């Protein structure tokens, strides 16, 4: 009897594991999920720029998931767009390591990809710079890209890229300032640094340039993953009277839900967040890294492996403010937005950050 119970439990425990996996395969076939299982067999390092006939091979190391609707996804989507432009997986091969939030593991991944002879190894996180500085000199024939930053460490094989996220933030801010009626806005951020800080400062600048009487309350919740706290921060803003919210990084998905519930407006950044709340997302600043990726690839193919830095901005199309077609933006506000974008593009508007 006792033995039977044991076996029963054992079977149950295993079926938990296997059952879960069973579900995995079911949709594996139907879902057109990015099957990047390209079996990157570690070929002997062909450390030369790709010959025209061979596929261009890119490896990317990212701090969060490729489907985070934020920073990492912006790069993965951009790579997929490049792949499409270049004629599919035969011409442009992508491999990736996601969730590499441990800097040391990311470093191992970067080194490994480099030694496998990839044409371009992208370190998509500002925290990876220090590791890249160590690794790049060991692989002089491999091209590296590091973002978001402007620093190439003076290395001939490192490209640097960054997003002028204050620009899209500014546009979002101008539009937001035209739509608010309570003159109070809320911002939810992760930690007060990097891309997040740039966007938030840009947003504030845009709001205040349009109407200096508006109060912009900012909340940094100290985490990139705490969805619950991000959502509560949004609720706090709403209680404080905010009728427009924005936020940056992947944990804001919780905040968007609260905005929708309370029917206050949301402005997104990094990836297009319209799908999460079609009724209240006004616009998202989206990074189109493919613009710089194309430039880098052209340079690599012509023998320049690095040493330059790129900034994605509104002028070069690396940043696009994507408006939600389902949100009825008043024509005058749309006009103001277009004017602001034009102003930033031609340099008549300059954004001063604190």
């Amino acid at each position: 009897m006792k033995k039977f119970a044991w076996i029963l439990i054992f079977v149950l425990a295993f079926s938990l594991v296997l059952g879960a996996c069973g579900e995995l395969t079911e949709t594996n076939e139907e879902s057109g999920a990015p099957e990047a299982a390209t079996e990157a067999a570690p070929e002997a390092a062909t450390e030369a720029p790709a010959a025209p006939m061979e596929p261009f091979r890119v490896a990317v190391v990212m701090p969060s998931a490729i489907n985070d609707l934020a920073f990492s996804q912006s790069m993965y989507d951009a790579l997929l767009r490049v792949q499409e432009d270049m004629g599919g997986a035969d011409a442009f091969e992508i491999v990736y390591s996601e969730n590499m939030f441990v800097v040391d593991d990311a470093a191992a991944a970067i080194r490994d990809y480099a030694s496998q002879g990839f044409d371009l190894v992208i370190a998509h996180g500002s925290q990876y710079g220090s590791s890249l500085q160590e690794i790049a000199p060991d692989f002089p024939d491999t091209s590296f890209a590091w973002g978001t930053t402007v620093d190439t460490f003076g290395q001939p094989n490192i490209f640097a890229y960054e997003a002028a996220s204050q620009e899209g933030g500014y546009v979002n801010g101008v539009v937001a300032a035209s739509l608010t009626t309570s003159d109070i806005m809320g911002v939810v951020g992760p930690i007060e640094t990097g891309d997040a800080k740039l966007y938030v400062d840009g947003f504030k600048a845009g709001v205040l340039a349009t109407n200096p009487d508006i109060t912009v309350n900012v909340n940094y919740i100290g985490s990139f993953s705490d969805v619950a706290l991000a959502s509560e921060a949004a609720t706090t803003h709403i209680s404080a009277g905010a009728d427009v919210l924005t936020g940056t990084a992947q944990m804001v998905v919780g905040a968007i839900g609260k905005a929708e519930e309370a029917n206050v407006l949301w402005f997104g950044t990094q990836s297009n967040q319209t799908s999460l709340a079609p009724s209240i997302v006004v616009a998202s600043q989206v990074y189109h890294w493919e613009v710089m990726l194309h430039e880098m690839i052209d340079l690599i193919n012509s023998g320049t492996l690095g040493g330059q830095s790129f900034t994605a901005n509104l002028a070069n199309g690396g940043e696009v403010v994507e408006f939600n077609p389902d949100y009825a933006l008043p024509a005058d506000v749309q006009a103001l937005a277009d004017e602001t974008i034009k102003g930033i593009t031609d340099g008549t508007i300059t954004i001063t950050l604190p």
Partner: protein
Amino acid sequence: MITELLSTTVLIGILASGIRLATPYLYAAIGETFGQKSGVLNLGVEGQMLLGCFAAFYVALTTGNLWLGLLAAMIVGAAMGLAMAFVTVNLRAQQGISGIGFYLFGLGMSDLLFQRLMGTVETVKGFQRIYIPGLSDIPGIGEIFFNQNILVYGAYLLVPLAWFVLNKTTLGLKIRAVGENPDAADSLGVSVARVRYFTIILGGTLSGIAGASLSIALLNVFQQNMTSGLGFIAVALVYFGAWKPVGVLGGALLFSMVNSLQLWIQVLGIPVPSDIAVMMPYVLTILVLVATVSRVRAPSALTKPFERDD
């Protein structure tokens, strides 16, 4: 600015969001209380919650039925509890460490399923706030207590229920006996294994509900690692509450309200660095415990596997 903290809007905001934020902690911590009362430390709560989060969300999304989602979360949580019980009761494995194993399993598995089955962050229309005519309209009080969703109310009903079961029923007596002196309980004919199986599976089920309360009631999204350490805080709150459901309630409310307070401090622009503000709930929880030096002892058999001397 400091005086603004005392305005009614802020106070109501803090209380209402404190009550809301405390919900997942309550489910998970009360479940953990049952486990610890019977002598089992489960550090895998976070993993159980994450799988519960995903199960509830995915089932609610595909079937459109929130109750089925909740049920799925309970089943998944219970299954995780069953596995935990087998490992700690039958195999007498070190409890803390197997909990960490189950945490990692839940963290990875929920993410894997999310990527394979959904692929991107989606939203679902979760349990809505319940409007109670009359009560919900009372200024202040209505906003704080009578404008929440069903899972929030469930969490607070769970507190007296858990107290009753633990202190006033034979089952509760057995649980406490097994946690204090398993040998004596065993000699009186109480099956230590059965009691522990019950409490661990119950704990898993409640952790599953805790996850569901996030993914289909409070936040209505699923994202990888969305609990972000909440399960570990829940375990800590059991110690804060000294293994009493009411104490757990106090701890959960304190932690949540201070968390809400720090959000307000930032919103009102009080010049405190954001990181320092974020620290507040953690620091205060410790300080409160220090100030109220308690002499309550852990259940004697906590973390000790039971084995008959034959």
